[in-house]
């Protein structure tokens, strides 16, 4: 039985939607998630949607997106199709452990939770918190800033499921894990889910997350992902967002790094109507290394909003940020990157760079690098550029016989490649290079073999 409600999603109606469906929400989730809801909805009541007065959300008006009519489901809908028939990921040499999420609910292949021989657990977050309440309970909602961001609180109040990944102590996972988030519905739909990724001491893994829309309806996604890299762990997370122009996504990533751990996140926004990506990193002990990268390709009336916050709480950590945006037509974008070096975080090395390319006179980019340093023995730098295609470089290529259009494409591709080249999983890197190339040529905004027209 499917239950659904139609909501006019302003703040009040979301709160009443929550109250009216609380039993259903709880029933289709698990205790750990349920126990966090009450205080989260209280927070949301207090905070509401982030407004333009909120410096973090200065260039995006959040509330109007929630005022549209969306269907909201609190039970997973029965799936009557075989997922292989509609979706085949086009990264042929990428042999992965695959996890699928459909409209915010984990989509089991055989079972809700897969446990590999080496102790790796992956599957439904709700299921995991029933089976491993201690593990999930220890980490779940311990990082997400429910008290500061109304959208995060809203997610905590409503989230019922998502993906859970646990890499046990010392395990080195050779094959990457791939999470594919699919949005598919005949109706306009709002989706809120939650991912939890834990790499325990000295564990190593690579995770690729792909977001796709498989039907032309409007989608509003509000997703929170919490990532823990414990002592000595090494984790690599690549997200690829490829959604159609009628989709809106708010993504909040919260990461916490423990001693001597390495975390790389790389968010490639290939396509999407409106995308907001928040990345919060807490360097919680000495010797951490963090890499935070972002690439956005936007055109027409699309908007990309990138926010990062790197919190150097402890000494001897390194962080390295590179964000790039390429904006065409009337597209708009914003970058707000904050680095905080706390008072005892001596010997910090923190670097941030944001480069943007405007292809038309109508495209707009707002960029705001922020560096707050309270320690006195650190090495930090930040910089932002907004520019146009290099005409000298274009002429240089033309002088070698390369046509004007091709020369421009090569320049744009080169600009984007700076970010793509940081992806460590080689087949994925090549695949994303290819997608970026075709995206720039206007040939493609969806994966090659996928029969669905996402965009």
């Amino acid at each position, binding site marked *: 039985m499917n239950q659904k409600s139609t909501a006019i999603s302003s703040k009040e109606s979301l709160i009443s939607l929550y109250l009216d469906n609380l039993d259903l929400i709880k029933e289709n989730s698990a205790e750990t998630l349920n126990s966090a809801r009450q205080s989260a909805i209280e927070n949301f009541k207090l905070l509401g949607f982030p407004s333009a007065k909120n410096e973090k959300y200065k260039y995006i008006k959040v509330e109007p997106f929630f005022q549209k009519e969306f269907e909201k489901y609190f039970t997973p809908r029965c799936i009557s199709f075989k997922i292989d028939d509609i979706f085949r990921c086009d990264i042929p040499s990428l042999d992965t452990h695959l996890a699928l999420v459909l409209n915010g609910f984990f989509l089991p292949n055989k079972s809700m939770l897969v446990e590999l021989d080496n102790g790796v657990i992956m599957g439904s977050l709700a299921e995991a918190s029933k089976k491993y309440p201690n593990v999930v309970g220890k980490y779940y909602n311990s990082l997400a800033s429910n008290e500061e961001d109304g959208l995060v609180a809203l997610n905590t109040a409503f989230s019922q499921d998502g993906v859970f990944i646990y890499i046990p102590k010392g395990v080195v996972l050779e094959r990457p894990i791939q999470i594919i988030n699919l949005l598919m519905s005949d109706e306009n739909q709002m989706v809120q889910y939650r991912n939890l990724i834990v790499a325990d001491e000295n564990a190593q893994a690579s995770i690729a997350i792909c977001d796709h829309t498989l039907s032309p309806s409007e989608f509003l996604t509000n997703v929170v992902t919490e990532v823990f890299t414990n002592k000595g762990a090494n984790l690599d997370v690549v997200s690829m967002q490829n959604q159609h122009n009628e989709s809106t996504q708010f993504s909040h990533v919260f990461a916490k790094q423990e001693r001597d751990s390495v975390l790389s996140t790389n968010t490639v926004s290939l396509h999407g109507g409106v995308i907001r990506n928040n990345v919060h990193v807490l360097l919680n002990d000495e010797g951490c290394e963090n890499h935070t990268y972002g690439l956005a390709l936007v055109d027409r009336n699309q908007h990309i909003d990138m926010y990062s916050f790197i919190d150097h709480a402890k000494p001897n950590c390194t962080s390295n940020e590179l964000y790039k945006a390429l904006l065409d037509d009337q597209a708009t974008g914003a970058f707000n990157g904050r680095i905080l070096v706390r008072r005892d975080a001596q010997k910090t090395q923190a670097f941030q760079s944001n480069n943007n390319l405007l292809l038309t006179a109508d495209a707009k980019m707002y960029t705001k690098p922020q560096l707050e340093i309270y320690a006195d023995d650190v090495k930090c730098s930040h910089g932002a550029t907004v520019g146009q295609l290099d005409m000298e470089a274009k002429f240089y290529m033309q*002088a070698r*016989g390369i046509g004007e259009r*091709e020369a421009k494409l090569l320049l744009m591709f080169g600009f984007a490649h700076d970010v793509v080249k940081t992806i460590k999983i080689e087949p994925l890197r090549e695949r994303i290079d290819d997608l970026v190339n075709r995206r720039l040529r206007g040939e493609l905004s969806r994966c090659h073999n996928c029969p669905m027209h996402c965009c």
Partner: protein
Amino acid sequence: MLKVKDLHASINGKEILKGINLEVKAGEIHAIMGPNGSGKSTLSAVLAGKEIFEVTHGEIEFNGKNLLELSPEERSREGIFLSFQYPIEIPGVSMVNFMKTALNEHRKHKGLDPVTASDFLKLMRERKELVEIDSALTNRAVNEGFSGGEKKKNEIFQMAMLEPKLAILDETDSGLDIDALRIVANGVNKLKRSDNATIVITHYQRLLDYIVPDFVHILYNGQIVKTGGKELALELEEKGYDWIKNGEQN
């Protein structure tokens, strides 16, 4: 091959070239010398089709075609090659990708199929030896982080890949030490054939010890004021440009 008739060109309304006449035939090497600001680089840029220069008068004919009607890329595909005085760095675009795209555009222009991956790599290897360019360089982005000498070698390497009919070397010797100069000049000489031609633009006679010209032209104040054989370069080296400047006044 190349016929320049009474060429006038200006930038932002300021006339730089004031009536250039030049004819280059297949198999010839021409040197154009002249003091700073005489219009040498403007001449090479106009030949390559740089749009910021406006041709106000005159004609350029290249192998029977009106060069002024062609875009920079069409000129290149027709066989004109400009070796840049200051080669441009293009971050993110690999040498391999850049060169392959350029080569295939040239092939398409000639009605040929794109080069196969193995043929391309073979050609690259072969031509790299010609200019003694470090293999690692071609694995990098175009000119990114190259030293001055490496950039110039890279220009000649590209020339070797594209095999132009007319190569214009704009101050290829500037910033080169004597060893790099020899290598670059060697590369140019090896590429010399009876059916192609070279225009060497330079300040100094030094390069002409290695690339021996058939004709030397002296460009001053937007005009070719003197033309002679290779001995003219030596005379110029000895007497300095004041000789020309003062000569003008007399």
